């Protein structure tokens, strides 16, 4: 767990999961984010909408610092998770990523068994070199699969390969389950339903709704209807800037900015 700064003692405003201050980001010479200031609340679902290339995914990927793998990303400003700047030199990436889990657009289970997929994260963060007692492992697997509503379908085929014979919906739920054993508190989801059929989309949305409260969820989506029905707050981004951040209901019914109104009415994007 990251250290809490002493200044966050005030009770009245809702606790924040992620907070950014004047966040600017460049890929080489291309600036992808401009002065992003966001306060994302703890325990709710926040959706991130906007046309392609508006910086939604970029923002998501800079929260768990996976963007850095590209090597040519530069950042100014800060991203704070529970009031601690994740770009501070003292931050250990493994600890950050334990706290902040990521779900991708295409379900990407590892080519190992369903059981091992779920234990993978737990093993790599385990001090005993990944050795887990069998009973403990069984408990972890069952708990994670129950949380994503997969236990009943999967309990008899835990040793099957996770990349074969599962529907995309099941794979995506498994990818969510895989994050849970290391006890993250924030889940980042990058268009988690865009590879799924309508039935799968509904099922995964239901699951996300189910996870609300236990986890702070930040979900990027292309699908405005999804943002509307599956999130409590909504952020609209355009050309690397945050245009509007308000309760979902309000953003869709009475948007403050003209760009937002045009976008949600489908005039562009």
């Amino acid at each position, binding site marked *: 767990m990251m250290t809490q700064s002493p200044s966050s003692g005030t009770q009245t405003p809702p606790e924040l999961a992620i907070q950014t201050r004047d966040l600017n980001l460049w890929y080489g010479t291309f600036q992808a984010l401009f002065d992003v200031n966001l306060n994302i609340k703890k325990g709710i679902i926040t959706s991130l909408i906007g046309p392609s290339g508006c910086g939604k995914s970029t923002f998501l990927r800079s929260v768990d610092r996976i963007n850095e793998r590209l090597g040519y990303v530069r950042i100014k400003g800060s991203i704070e998770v529970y009031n601690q700047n994740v770009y501070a030199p003292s931050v250990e990436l493994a600890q950050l*990523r334990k706290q902040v*889990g990521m779900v*991708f657009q295409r379900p*990407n289970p*590892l080519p190992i068994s369903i059981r091992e997929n779920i234990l993978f994260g737990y093993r*790599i963060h385990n001090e005993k070199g990944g050795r887990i007692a069998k009973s403990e492992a069984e408990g972890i697997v069952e708990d994670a699969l129950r949380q994503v509503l997969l236990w009943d379908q999967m309990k008899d085929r835990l040793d099957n*390969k996770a990349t*074969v014979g599962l529907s995309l919906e099941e794979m995506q739920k498994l990818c969510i389950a895989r994050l849970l054993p290391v006890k993250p508190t924030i889940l980042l989801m990058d268009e988690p339903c865009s590879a799924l059929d309508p039935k799968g989309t509904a099922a995964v949305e239901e699951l996300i709704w189910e996870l609300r409260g236990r986890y702070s969820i930040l979900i990027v989506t292309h699908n405005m209807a999804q943002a509307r029905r599956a999130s409590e707050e909504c952020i609209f981004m355009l050309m690397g800037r945050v245009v509007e951040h308000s309760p979902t209901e309000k953003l869709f019914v009475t948007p403050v900015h003209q760009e937002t109104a045009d976008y949600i009415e489908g005039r562009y994007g």
Partner: protein
Amino acid sequence: MFEATGINQQNDQTQKRFKMLFGVMMVILIIPVIIIIGTLIYKGGPSISWSFIFDHPTNGMTQGGIFPALFGTVWLVVVSLLASVPLGVAAAIYLSEYAPDNLLTRLINLATINLAGVPSIVHALFGVGAFVVFFRFGTSILAASLTLAIMTLPVVIVSSWEALQSVPRSFREACWNMGATRWQTIWNVVLPNAYTGILTGVILQVSRAAGETAPIMFTGAAMFLPFLPNSVFDQTMALALHLFVVATQVPDVPESLPFGVALVLVGIVLIMNFFAIWIRMRLRGKKKW
């Protein structure tokens, strides 16, 4: 309404002509292979026997078997693999998984690929200078094997690199996002899915190392030795050089002898290649992601 018009017939003609052209090319390509293997079996086949494989050459290498050469070739290949595989795979892992994508890395990649095209006689002379003279290994199995290793290294690196790159990036991202280090990712996910590909590349290099003559001629292979080598610091006979010797250097060799040697050599190479193809096919069947 749907009958062919002049332009259709013309297109049809062109299409047929090209099909013919490519077919003929294919036949031209395959004929030499059939002739070579056919001749080897026809002329060398009769001399193949247990004693041919397990006896020493006799009567100034005009009779007897080829065991010391076969034995030496196995030695050379094994020792060269012990050097080239760990080195090559490690270098490939670095280039594929760790090295930043910059000009230097690209230059190194380019250099590696080009190194694969250096003539083997150049490698041979390098081996003489480096291993025989500078490191004082003398003409020995060790020097010859290391020379073979240097020769096969570029292809081992390139094929291992390709095998590593064929593991989908999404697997790596999944691992990194769970907080795995690069090494945890490589060990748990990348290598288990790349090793069959790496193995295929290595086996193809085995057949190449077994067949090369130039790199071992000056570094450790002898024309004739009455005894088998005792250690890696001894010289040895080798099949490829033995074939060269009995075919061109020794008088009064019965015609079937060099053909027999060639048949054994080609046989080893083909068996290794088929083994590599078999592994690749098994891998294709198994890999579903």
